[in-house]
């Protein structure tokens, strides 16, 4: 049904409403919205218990994720991971073409690889940001 027949508030009240909502910006900031960009959870907030609850390769990834913040070792770990993921991805590519006949474990593994690739890109971005931060 159209909103045309609804009586709007006067301009002053409308501004008051906007001001009230704007004053709540800080309190509403923590809530997720569809228009926010995706960001990985803050690493410091992830407990060991959470890590254990995640299976297989993803655990491995997270473990590396934390250590990769080490300034000198980080880029090399990322390089090694990129190479290993690239190799793994090539190995899986033939199977991925025939997705229909994959069993679930293989499928999940393929997904995990894709997932890891995205995370590697994020890590690289974090590394770059860290370096920019150091220079500043």
């Amino acid at each position: 049904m159209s909103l045309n027949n609804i009586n709007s508030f006067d301009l002053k009240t409308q501004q008051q409403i906007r001001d009230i909502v704007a004053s709540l910006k800080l309190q509403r900031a923590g809530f997720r919205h569809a228009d926010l960009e995706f960001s990985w959870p803050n690493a410091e907030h992830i407990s060991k218990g959470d890590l254990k609850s995640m299976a297989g390769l993803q655990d491995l990834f997270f473990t590396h994720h934390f250590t990769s913040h080490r300034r000198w070792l980080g880029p090399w770990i990322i390089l090694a991971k990129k190479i290993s993921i690239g190799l793994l991805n090539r190995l899986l590519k033939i199977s991925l073409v025939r997705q229909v006949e994959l069993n679930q474990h293989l499928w999940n593994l393929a997904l995990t690889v894709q997932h890891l690739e995205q995370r590697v890109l994020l890590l690289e971005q974090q590394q770059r940001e860290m370096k920019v931060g150091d220079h500043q």
Partner: protein
Amino acid sequence: MIANYKAVHQLLPSFSPRDAIGNEAVIMQRTLRGLGLRSEIFAEQGEAKGLDELFSTDLAQSALLYHFSIASTIPGRIAPLRLPKLVRYHNITPPWFFNSQGELVAQQACSLGRRQIPMVGVIADGILADSAYNAAEINPYSEKPATVMPLLRDYESLTQLAHHVDALPGSPALNRPALLFVGRIAPNKCQQDLLVLLHLAHKFISKDLRLILVGGFFSTDFHRQFCDLAAHLGLRIGADLQTDHGADVVIPRDVTDADMALIYRQARVFVSMSEHEGFGVPLVEAMFFDLPILAHRSSAVPETLGEAGLLVDKNDWPTTLAALKAIVQDEDLRSALTNAMRQRRKALSLSSGLQQFNQWLNSF
């Protein structure tokens, strides 16, 4: 033709006859058995036969109907089977709504689930989507476009329950006009915006309004954030609808179907600020109770509502509040909305849904 088959079995990641998807599976099972077919429900978890039992069942001349709503091992396990695979796509919440510590597992389940959409689309011989919004998500991966059919639910029985409860002596009444939202209290449903709306409504419409939220909290993090915001806005949260008259926000516990019917019946307006709905069962329930609806225009909400409610844009708070004021106070508008809802619910009724389901089955 479905007549060529002897059985259509349904597969779900988890099954409970009380949730909307489980309830639909039961209705479908009843319908399939009514057509003379064998029909069982298999699930990875819940109150149904275990998924492993499917593989020890005689599957000759059988078809499978998979309810796809979250990541599971089902697509991978049924993909190699040489059987027709039908998919009921209920949509999967985008993972970016979940980002706190306690929501990590849900984030992973939704993330993996959404990555399974292409695979499910590829293996499906026929897809039934709750809404055109859902169909648009899976159509790029499937050979044949999905058929749109609203979620099957016996809304009429809920309204009949309300009549029954009303007739009981001493039926409790809500003593303050209430805004109602029904659904899991989770980031994608944006109940925090309902708190803001109530806060504004207290200032610009009436101090008497209260908010009723029916649903459990999705995570402790969201619970904490929600309570912090309520406290900041000076809104008191209570749990008892009948006795806690001072609470501005009521989140009743252990709500039965009868309670639910009574709440729908006595609320003043159904408000939804949800940012992601694959269909929106509570919107339709509200329609069946003649409860006027004000909703945020997002995902499948506009097509579920049709003309039977007021749609507002997110963050247009002055218009949202003006629309709320009109729905609460303008009897002419309420009456016009009621008429629109009565028209709309014909298309969403169980009998209409079953007719579509039968047509869809016969198209194979």
